[in-house]
């Protein structure tokens, strides 16, 4: 994907093109029209009289629409254009493109306008790995439409390109011969439909090359409706969110950016009716991820609690039911990742769905409780009691791989399963101080914190929603025992911090990492140890000035631009700050919030997945980690959680407690209409003691 790539999307349908609006995908390039993890267009090029066009500008109208202003020419600096071309494109069940050509000259012109189109129907995993297709491609040319198809046995995906104007169609594109009078324009509309992509209300094609009746009847007018619907939907979303008023303009920009990006990342899994949950990120991760959807829902709870509701319901519907080694599935386990493409269909990849995550199951219970605390929606807590119990059972009966009371992970699918099933899932993320990698299974520390929190929170739900005080007592006793054990077995006494993990033999994997911040969030840390943990988090080894590094400086594998071994992750920091507040370290939490929110300014309010772990004093600006995934849901959610943390928002019974602790120079912050079981409430805060 080139640096000037333009992405627009709706759910898991998205278009990535260059700044002319053209698509020229290579086997490993992410350009194209994608829907349900399949590339439905790999070529989409516009020429006028055989010439490619030059881009003057691109308007990002909304996350689902873009407008490209183009002129013919050779690409030199000086463009003497007698023609302008405008392509306006909106995504929605494929996309719709309005093509307008304006003749600025005194003479009429006759032009040959050509769209070249092709579809490789690559699976997203094939785009990553450049593998060959196993099925057959076909095309069908009709009077005003071109159908590109792909079939492998009964797996059929088709792209239908159609228009209304006078057009000649051949098997590689559409040609218009147009005459435009002086100072007049010519317009046409191109519609591209992705057929066979799974979405609500869509019927899959039955035989290759034969659009279904449903498809035929839906063709006209649907795209316009989709665009209008999305526009209304975005307006409603923004209107519904709490209003932020503050002295700091940058914070306002970041807040609005977060809300808009979160709207863009909403995704309707097939199970959720008209509701949506946060997908993980564009372009690789427009799908349901257990961990990412839960963390983002937690971050967004004070702003859009309905995301949590959908996430909980969808993950419950897909909860594991059987021991299945290929999918690393167990009864009670919450899914890791869901995919819709050819490799999932033919079980060449296990994502139908894949369950190899060791944290989503505990976090599911955590989210259920936190959601009830905010919304008072006892009905959902009751409805999902069996799933919550199954999740708790998974912790004890399936995740305790060493029989020592800790959550461990080790993949059973050795070909295509995930090795590291915690959020730091790269190959070198879990290491000893001296750089050695432990064997499997591994028990990372934050997994134990999540398990502890899940039990404590489930005990509360057992009392108020499930009316099972005996179960509550049992859970609390188990949680207390886990906490005692954990503070003994994971505590690195000579370093005064918690080990990153235990290895298979129960030895401490003793690197100092950001994971200890999550332990504060979960509440598993003994009070007597919290101060030492906070000191480490804010030390020069971990805190860069922008945020807490994933791995401390001085550890053998530390690398300021290593994915999970030195970079700073906004999402990680948002939970660390929440944890610091939980243990009363208000100023420390505010410093982290300030650092990350300062960094957001350099990215126009859109926090990247991660940035370099360099000292703030060294680089003066945060160095973005080179990754294509932006926006990313839990980075988008981070500013929201920071707002919660800075304002000290905490449900207490039917009330919202507001206990602000703002960073230096924050001035005044007001958040209006915070939704919850209290109806709506406003929060006001002011930082009075301005220093330096």
């Amino acid at each position, binding site marked *: 994907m080139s640096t000037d790539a333009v992405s627009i999307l709706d759910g898991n349908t998205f278009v990535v093109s260059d700044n002319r609006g053209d698509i020229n995908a290579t086997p490993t390039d992410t350009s194209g029209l994608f829907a349900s993890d399949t590339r439905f267009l790999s070529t989409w090029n516009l020429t006028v009289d055989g010439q490619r066009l030059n881009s003057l500008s691109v308007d990002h109208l909304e996350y689902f629409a873009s407008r490209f202003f183009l002129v013919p020419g050779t690409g030199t600096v000086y463009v003497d254009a007698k023609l302008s071309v405008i392509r306006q494109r909106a995504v929605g069940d494929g996309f719709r493109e309005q093509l307008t050509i304006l003749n600025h000259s005194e003479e009429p012109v006759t032009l040959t306008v050509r769209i070249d189109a092709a579809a490789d129907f690559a699976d997203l995993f094939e785009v990553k790995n450049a593998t060959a297709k196993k099925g057959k491609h076909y095309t069908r040319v009709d009077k005003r439409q071109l159908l590109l198809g792909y079939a492998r046995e009964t797996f059929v995906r088709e792209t239908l390109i159609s228009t209304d104007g006078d057009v000649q169609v051949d098997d590689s594109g559409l040609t218009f011969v147009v005459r435009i009078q002086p100072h007049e324009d010519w317009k046409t509309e191109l519609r591209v439909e992705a057929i066979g992509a799974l979405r*609500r209300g869509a019927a899959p094609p039955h035989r290759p090359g034969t659009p279904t009746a449903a498809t035929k009847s839906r063709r006209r007018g649907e795209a316009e409706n989709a665009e209008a619907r999305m526009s209304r939907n975005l307006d409603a979303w923004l209107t519904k969110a709490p209003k932020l008023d503050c002295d700091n303009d940058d914070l306002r920009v970041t807040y609005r950016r977060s809300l808009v990006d979160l709207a863009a990342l909403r995704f309707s899994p097939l199970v959720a009716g008209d509701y949506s949950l946060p997908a993980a990120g564009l372009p690789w991760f427009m799908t349901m991820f257990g961990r990412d959807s839960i963390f983002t829902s937690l971050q967004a709870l004070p702003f859009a609690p309905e995301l949590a509701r959908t996430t909980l319901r969808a993950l419950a519907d897909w909860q594991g039911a059987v*021991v*299945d080694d290929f999918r690393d599935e167990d009864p009670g386990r919450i899914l890791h990742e869901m995919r819709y493409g050819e490799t999932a269909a033919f079980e060449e990849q296990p994502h139908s769905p894949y369950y190899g995550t060791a944290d989503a199951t505990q976090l599911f219970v955590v989210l259920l409780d936190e959601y009830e605390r905010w919304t008072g929606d006892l009905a959902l807590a009751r409805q999902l009691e*069996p799933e919550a119990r199954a999740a708790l*059972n998974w912790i004890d009966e399936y*995740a305790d*791989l060493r029989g020592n009371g800790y959550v461990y992970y080790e993949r059973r699918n050795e070909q295509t399963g995930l090795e590291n099933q915690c959020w730091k899932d790269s190959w070198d993320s879990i290491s000893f101080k001296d750089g050695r990698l432990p064997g499997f299974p591994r028990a990372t520390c934050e997994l134990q914190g999540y398990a502890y929190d899940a039990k404590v929170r489930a005990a509360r739900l057992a009392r108020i929603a499930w009316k099972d005080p005996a179960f509550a007592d049992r859970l609390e006793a188990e949680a207390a025992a886990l906490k005692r054990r954990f503070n003994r077995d994971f505590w690195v006494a000579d370093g005064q911090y918690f080990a990153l993990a235990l290895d298979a033999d129960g030895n401490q994997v003793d690197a100092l990492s950001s994971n200890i911040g999550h332990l504060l969030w979960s509440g598993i840390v003994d009070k007597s140890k919290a101060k030492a943990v906070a000191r480490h988090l804010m030390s020069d080894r971990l805190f860069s000035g922008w945020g807490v590094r994933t791995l401390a400086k001085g550890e053998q594998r530390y690398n300021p631009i290593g994915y999970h071994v030195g970079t700073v992750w906004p999402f990680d920091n948002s939970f660390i700050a929440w944890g610091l507040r939980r243990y009363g370290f208000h100023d420390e939490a505010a410093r982290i919030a300030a650092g990350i929110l300062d960094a957001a300014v350099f990215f126009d309010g859109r926090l990247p997945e991660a940035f370099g772990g360099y000292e703030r004093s060294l680089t003066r600006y945060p160095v973005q980690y080179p990754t294509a995934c932006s926006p990313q849901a839990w980075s988008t959610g981070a500013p929201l959680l920071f707002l919660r943390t800075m304002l000290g928002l905490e449900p207490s019974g039917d009330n919202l407690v507001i206990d602000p602790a703002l960073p230096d120079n924050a001035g005044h912050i007001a958040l209006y209409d915070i939704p919850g079981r209290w109806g709506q409430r406003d929060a006001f805060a002011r930082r009075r003691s301005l220093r330096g």
Partner: protein
Amino acid sequence: MGDITTAFFDELAESDHQPMLRRAQGTIRFDIESGRTTKRWAVTIDRGAVTVSQKNRAADCVVRADGAVFDNLVTGAANTFAMMLRGQVVTDLEHPELLLLFHRFMRARQQAAAATAPPAAAGAGRARSAGRTKR
């Protein structure tokens, strides 16, 4: 189609309440094809209470599959969602949540059927050794 599918629906008709289906509400009709014949089972679920009818009735979700494929879904040899993606199981997707809950119910049933071996000692994911699905 084989006896497996028929036996499955017979067994379902005998049961009166399925906890796994308690969040489902509506009728899901299975059109199971075998050569030129189609057998239909309409499963009406009302908060876990299940009734099965072989009348050709309107449904909130219609699922069409070949008998041999459906046999494999029942035994667990095939995965419903993968088969949907592949086009072997066709559904209208207006109420896909019904099929999804049904899919989980079938998986749980397979787990219960497989979990006849005595549980292993504590540790090593002790619950896992009972009832394992291999591919």
